[in-house]
Structures are given as C-alpha cells and as structure tokens.
C-alpha cells in the first residue's frame, strides 16, 4: 500500500542547528496492516508522519502509494487517501462552525462545488453516526463548545466518514483525560476493525502497542530500530520491549565510549 524508500529529513541543513530527524527509513506497509509506532520523544515518530502526509518536503528518498510515486504530491492532494488525526484535538475540526457543517465538509474529500448538500436526510444520517459519542442532539452547536474528548471523537468520526485508505493517528488520545482517552481509543479500534482500515498509530503505551495491531515499529534517533509482526509480535512483553530498547541503546553507548577512549 505505502512504500517508504530511504526517507531522510534534515532540518536547517548547513546551519549550526542542523538536525537529522529521519535517517534512512524504509518501510513497506501492506493493506490491512495496523502498525503501532513507539519510541522516545524526539525519535522522529511525528516527523515520519509529517513526511508521509506531505506536511514537510523530503530531504532524500521517495514515497509511493499503491505503486504511484507521491514524493512531490502536495499535502492536500495526499489527504484524499491519507487521513490524519493529530494529538491536538482542535486540529481536526473548525471551532467556529456547527457540528453538522463540520461533518458535511468532511463527508466528501476534495474541492467542493456550489451545491447545498446539507439536508434533513443528511442530518438524520449524521445524528445516527453521532450516537456512539453522545452528540446526536447537538448538530447545530458550534464545535468550539465541545470538550477535548468530544472534539477528538468527532474528528475520528469525520476522518472515518471520508473513508481514507490509510489513517495516521499521531498520539491522538495523549491530550485527553484517561476516561475520554479510553472512549476515543475504543472507538478507534472499533472503526479500524469495522471499516477494515490500514492504520499507523503513534503511542506511548507499550502494553497497548503489543496488544493492538498487527505490527510494531520502534524508532530511535530517526531510525527504525525494531520492526516485528505476526507471531513474533504476539510473544512480546513490555519487559522484553524495554530490554531490547536498552540493549540497542547500550550498544550505541559502548560504541561511543570506545570512540572516546581511543
């Protein structure tokens, strides 16, 4: 489905602030895979998502989607098949508009025409879709009045409604309180299974990353340092994962020490 070939992103090249955020990442994600991405802060997880969705241009490498090269495709064009949910619940919806207006804007992807699509039939549909998140009677309320959890749940619903082929979830429950985080995460799992979505999800919850999804990727300093799937993934435990991470870090650390000793 999506193929990342030797992705590299360097911020501020040629300056003192130069930072290699992504260092030669190659991945091939097949249709129906649910990939959990873990890694410490600054390991390049979010940058990787920004490169896939086209927010930043690549420094080197290429991305192809269903065998079509999209390396130079603009973000808004990629958005037609790549859906994305951010950590910040305010990023996915327009606060100054009502829930129904937000939903009608999300119901079709791409440039809109001079048609008035919002009618009572649509309102009924929306209201049914909103039942699981308890907003079925608030179609005319402004989204700005909703709580963070409600907004993120609405964003999720809107993203699923526009039926993207790949969905990127960038720690989308991290800014929510535990109860709302659970609700949104349950909905996420439900939608992914129901709609048979291909998904990539950044999470800090190792236990969750092991239990959920078909593949687990660990990133560190802009590289993929662990990539497991299938039976191998099922056998993982949190302790093992931490151990693997420590081992890899220690190797690097000792290598650095050797260099310093020389």
């Amino acid at each position, binding site marked *: 489905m999506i193929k990342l070939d030797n992705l590299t992103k360097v911020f501020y090249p040629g300056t003192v602030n130069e930072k290699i955020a992504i260092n030669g990442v190659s991945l091939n994600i097949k249709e129906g895979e649910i990939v959990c991405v873990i890694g410490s802060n600054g390991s390049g997880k979010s940058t990787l998502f920004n490169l896939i969705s086209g927010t930043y241009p690549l420094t080197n490498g290429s991305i192809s989607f269903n065998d079509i090269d999209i390396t130079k495709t*603009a*973000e*808004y*064009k990629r*958005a*037609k098949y790549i*859906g*994305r949910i*951010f950590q910040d619940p*305010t*990023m*996915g*919806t*327009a*606060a*100054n*508009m*009502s829930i129904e*207006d*937000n939903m*009608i*804007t*999300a119901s*079709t*992807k*791409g*440039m*809109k*025409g*001079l*048609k*008035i*699509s*919002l009618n009572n039939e649509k309102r009924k549909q929306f209201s049914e879709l909103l039942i699981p998140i308890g907003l079925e009677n608030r179609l*005319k309320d*402004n989204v700005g009045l909703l709580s963070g959890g409600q907004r993120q749940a609405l964003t999720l619903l809107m*993203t699923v409604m*526009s039926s993207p082929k790949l969905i990127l979830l960038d720690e989308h429950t991290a800014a929510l309180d535990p109860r709302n985080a659970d609700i949104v995460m349950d909905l996420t799992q439900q939608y992914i299974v129901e709609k048979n979505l291909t998904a990539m999800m950044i999470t800090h919850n190792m236990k969750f990353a092991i239990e959920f999804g078909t593949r687990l990727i660990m990133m560190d300093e802009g590289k993929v340092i662990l990539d497991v799937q299938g039976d191998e993934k099922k056998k993982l435990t949190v302790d093992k994962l931490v151990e693997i991470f420590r081992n890899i870090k220690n190797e690097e650390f000792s290598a650095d020490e050797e260099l310093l000793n020389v």
Partner: protein
Amino acid sequence: MIEGIFVDGLIFSIMVLGILISFRVLDFADLTCDGSLATGAAVATMHIISGGSIFIALVLAFLAGTVAGMVTATIHNKFKIPGLLAGILTMTMLYSINLRILGNKANVPLLRIETFYTILPEKLSSIPSSVAVLIGTLLVVLFVKTLVDVFFRTDLGLAVGALGGNEQMVISQGMNPDYLKLLGIGVSNGLIALSGGLLAQYQGFADANLGQGMVVQGLAAIMIGEFLFHSNRISLITLRAVLGAIIYKTLMFFGRKYGYLINITPNDFKLLTGILVIASLWIAKSRTQASNRAAKKNAILRTQKGEEAND
C-alpha cells in the same frame, strides 16, 4: 433625512459584508478594501460616463474588486507573506491604478448623468424620491445579502468558512487552501467594490481617496452588530452586519449634526471610529472575562456541593 441615513448605511453595509467575509469568516486581515472601494467607484463611474448601462457598471465594479482581492490572495499565497502586508501592497498599488482609471484625475463628478439614484425616483414617481431611493437600495442589499447567505451554505462556502476556523482541517479534507483564499478574498473585495460603485452614484462623484480608513469603519460596524445578538447562523451574522452598518452611519450622522455642541467636527471622526473599535474590543473582552468568572464560580460551587454530598 432619515431615509438618507438608511441609504447611506445600506450602501455601506455591502462593504461591511465584504469586510465580514475577510476579517470574520476567513480570519484574514485584509486591507485591500481601502483601495478596492475606490476601484469600484472609479470603474462604475467611468463606465456610466462613457454611456454604458448602470447594471453593467455595477457588475464591472464587482469584477474589478474581485481581481484586486485575488491579487492580494496571490501575493499572500505565492510569497508566503502575511495577509496584512499583501493587502497593504495591493491597496498602495491600487491608488495609482484608480487614478489611471479616473483618467489621471483625483475626482470625477457624475453630474447631469443618468445614474441608479436618478433613475429610481423617475421609475417610482408615485412615491417620494427619497423613499424610492431607499427601496431601491434596500432591494440591492437584500439581493446581495441573500446571495452571500446562500453561498456560505453551499459545500464550497462551508469550506471557505472552515478555512477561517482551521486551515489544517481544510488541507486534511483534500482541498487546496490557496484556491479557497483566492475565492474568499476575491468575493470579499468584489462586494466592497460593488459598494463603491453604488456610493459613487449616490454621492455623485468618484474619488481616488474614497476608501481611506474604510476598513476601520467597517470593523466598527461589524463590532456594533456583534453586540446586537449572538448566533452562528450565517443569515443572522450577515443581518447583524447590515444592522451594525446602519447604526454606525446613524451615530456618525448625529455626530455630524450635534457634534458641534461638544466641539466635535467631522475631522475627528476617524479618531472617534478608532476609539469605538477599541472600546468594542474592550467590552467584548470584559464580557468574556465576566462569563469565565461566572463559570469558574459555578464550578467551585458545584465541587463544594459534591464534597458535602460525599461527607
């Protein structure tokens, strides 16, 4: 007399609708207005003087304004400079262009020429001319307002609205924000220029300095309107902008009429308008603060009650 205030306010309200689209709907601080109002006046005046029809003159004024707005949007999109600066650039350039349109004159009169405001009393001769003028202008404003309302209920209009609320969302929905800005700022300045085209005919001349300080006046009208009532429905948002425009013009009328009593002359109006905008901002801010304080107080009360219940 009272009809005069209304006509003045109604013509002004079309410009206010344009400013509403850029400042409120798109959240784009567009200063092109100061230039495009005069562009509309100049284009309409020159077309009428050269013997063209009044209707076509207004259409041309709208189109000229749209192009001006699109220039601002293009400068903003292509060079990634803030909308404010892009608007100032276009506004400055428009000053020269407006003088060109007016045949290198700063002021072109529309005397002894048939205009919208001389035709109206002729066509509706059974009623007093000032009422005929008022009815004609009201119809134009209703027509424009309805078009704006319908546009912002279409899928495309909603997308423009979403752009003002959250640009990332528009991108995520697969739309090019650059096109939407081009369209939104274009329509906004089209309306402003249309207002200029009517204004020139009403006051009987086109002036290269017509637009000076208009953005601030428009903002003052929008803010007055926002005090009237609260709504997220576009038809009511445009209605309160129109009402705000009329109230603003009424205030200015009384300022002109009775201002001498407290030693205020029309020269002071720009200062007063600015103070009016600042006062509106201040009142709006203290209102939000008051409602936040009330909400906080209620929340504390609720939690205390909850604790008592637990005890």
